[in-house]
């Protein structure tokens, strides 16, 4: 009976959809799965409900190389989507592949947006060297420092409200880690030590906090950047030597170390915020937690960051029909204005009217670490950098062995320089 009912309902819906006039279908590809995926599906559903004339037809596939390879091959032969999610760190490679179409000012106008509506750093990362925009930033996501209050109680590291304070240098952090270790935290600083993402993000943060850059004018770690990279690796190796960080922790294990209460601190992306919020709500977390922007441990304010963005790929040799492009821009504009729901996944909206709205500035813990948007340092603008790039691979291939003691920091930095330089030549 229930089946029959739903069949009739489906038929009726289908019939009514068919009778609606000139509905534009927008083919949408993204790489959002897990918590992000659920939130994006909800947004897409809401959009489709509100727009009888536009129908988003969404497909999600696996994050990383599989997604980007598929996009490139499909777009080149005109079988790609009308709109897709994209990492801003991946824009330089996309530009050299020539698979993105420029987002013009009239496109933005159609979407009800303007360049000034976004954090300047994200617009810069979404543009080519001449300033032509190729993607519309959606969020800024970064790494944050999560902490378990139970290991810090009664110490100077918690203020009266129970918030983390007093970590203003590497020594402060190391002292806090030592304290947590004394208080029984086995591996007081958890992060993904056996995967490219976790290692790369921390390494890049430490390098940037010394004012260092990975690639300058086609040279990998030129001048004293090599020493800065060495120092960054040495800091991470030291955390290993003192048993502050877990050995060979895969991503899931690194999360589990914190959520099970074994690690006092945890450095990971903002996207794990929902995990903790949900566990706390379900009463399965077992401790009080907080999250702050990764403190400035070295000389300069800098935190690795990336953005999810929307991009419109080329359609092989053809041009996208103007009505279709209009529909795509309508989708982008609507999404930006509803980015608050997306922010619940831990992200910071790239769209300033929402990022500065009262609703967001009261959203916890996002508001606590929202300042990182001003310290955001995107990956080097290079064909070999960005999400799922050889630079990420090098983090796993070279830095991971170093932080586990198989390579000296100098050797690792030099190895990384040579290997990446060979790819650039």
């Amino acid at each position, binding site marked *: 009976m229930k089946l029959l009912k739903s069949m009739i309902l489906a038929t009726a819906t289908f019939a009514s959809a068919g009778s609606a006039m000139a509905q534009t279908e927008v083919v949408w590809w993204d790489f959002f799965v897990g918590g992000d995926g659920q939130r994006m599906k909800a947004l897409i559903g809401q959009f489709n409900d509100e727009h009888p004339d536009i129908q988003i037809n969404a497909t999600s596939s696996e994050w990383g*190389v599989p997604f980007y*390879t598929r996009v*490139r*091959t499909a777009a*080149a*032969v005109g079988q790609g989507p009308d709109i897709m999610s994209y990492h801003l760190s991946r824009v330089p*490679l996309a530009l*050299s*592949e020539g698979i993105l179409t420029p987002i013009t000012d009239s496109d933005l106008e159609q979407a009800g947006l303007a360049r000034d509506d976004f954090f300047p750093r994200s617009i810069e990362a979404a543009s080519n060297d001449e300033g032509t925009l190729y993607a519309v930033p959606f969020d800024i996501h970064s790494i944050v420092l999560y902490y378990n209050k139970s290991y810090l109680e009664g110490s100077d590291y918690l203020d009266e409200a129970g918030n983390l304070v007093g970590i203003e240098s590497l020594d402060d952090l190391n002292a806090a880690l030592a304290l947590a270790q004394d208080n029984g935290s086995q591996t007081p600083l958890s992060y993904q030590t*056996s995967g490219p993402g976790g290692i790369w993000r921390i390494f890049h943060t430490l390098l940037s906090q010394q004012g260092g850059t990975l690639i300058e004018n086609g040279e990998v770690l030129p001048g004293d950047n090599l020493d800065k990279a060495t120092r960054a690796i040495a800091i991470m190796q030291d955390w290993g030597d003192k048993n502050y960080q877990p*050995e*060979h*922790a*895969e991503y899931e*294990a690194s999360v589990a170390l914190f959520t099970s209460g074994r690690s006092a601190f945890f450095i990971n992306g903002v996207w794990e915020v929902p995990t903790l919020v949900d566990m706390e709500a379900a009463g399965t977390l077992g401790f009080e937690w907080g999250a702050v922007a990764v403190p400035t441990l070295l000389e300069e304010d800098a935190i690795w960051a990336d953005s999810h963005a929307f991009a419109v790929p080329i359609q092989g040799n053809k041009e996208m029909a103007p009505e279709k492009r209009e529909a795509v821009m309508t989708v982008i504009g609507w999404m930006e204005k509803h980015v608050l729901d997306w922010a619940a996944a831990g992200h910071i909206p790239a769209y300033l009217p929402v990022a500065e709205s009262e609703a967001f500035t009261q959203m916890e813990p996002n508001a606590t670490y929202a300042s990182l948007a001003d310290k955001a340092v995107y990956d080097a603008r290079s*064909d*070999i950098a960005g999400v*799922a*790039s*050889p630079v990420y*691979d090098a983090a*796993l*291939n*070279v830095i*991971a*062995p170093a932080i*586990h003691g*198989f*390579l000296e920091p100098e050797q*690792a930095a030099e*190895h990384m320089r*040579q*290997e990446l330089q*060979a*790819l650039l030549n």
Partner: protein
Amino acid sequence: MITNRRKHIVVAMTLIAPFVFIFALVFLYPTLKMVELSFTNAPLIGSGEWVGLDNYRRLFNDNLFYTSLKNNGYFVLLTVVPTTVIALAIALAVNRLAGSMQALVLAVFFLPYILPVSVVTQIWAWMLDFQFGILQPLIEWVTGKPVAVFNHPSWVMPAVASITIWWTNGFNVLLFIAGLRNISPDLYEAAALDGASRRQLFMKITWPLLWPVTALVLTLQLILQLKLFDQVYLLSGGGPFNSSYVLLMMVYREAFQLNHGGYASAVAVILFVLIMIVSVLQFQLLRIGGRK
């Protein structure tokens, strides 16, 4: 009987035409295209400009190429002969069983072979997991401490090799069993009547008569193991610091991560030529060895 020779040829041609057509379409044409691509600076999609031998010149100056070559060689050493010896031993043992017992044991040894590579690597990644792996206590008992095998420069290749042998050995056992069944029991009977020992039976009858199969297994293994990619990609990603980087990983990275279709083709051509030379050479050597 008088045959119309011409008609004969026409019939033969008609019969092989479908195969030749498919072969040309999905193998010959792509192969020639790949060779052509290797002389251009083409991206992954579309064509590029002719650059002559530039890709090859660059390749022979690429340190990673030599590291990969060395690792490919190391992996071949670790797998080809060991897997053949193990398969032969298992086949000899299984051959002594009879009836349904033999079928059952054979099935057990063959089982891993039917698993897809992703399942195989997942099983072993779990079993050898640094924190929770069921095999870690064993490793700890031997070495005194747990080892993250896929992150350790000297453990990674032997580990991948052992897993590969576990995975692919069943097929070799099958080939050896077939070879053993082809040896007439009369020979053993006659030799036994003449008072030959077990050792003599093996050395004088089984080994020489099985040689063609052994040569085949060795050659097939050599080709297969030179094409190593999946296990390394899934288990170690080529690390740590390139200790398990192999030529096909290089092809993958250049083509799919870096959009260098031309350069990736050059690496692929070198691998193709290498496999061809080595396997032809090996097969000829083994044939000579067998004739003595």
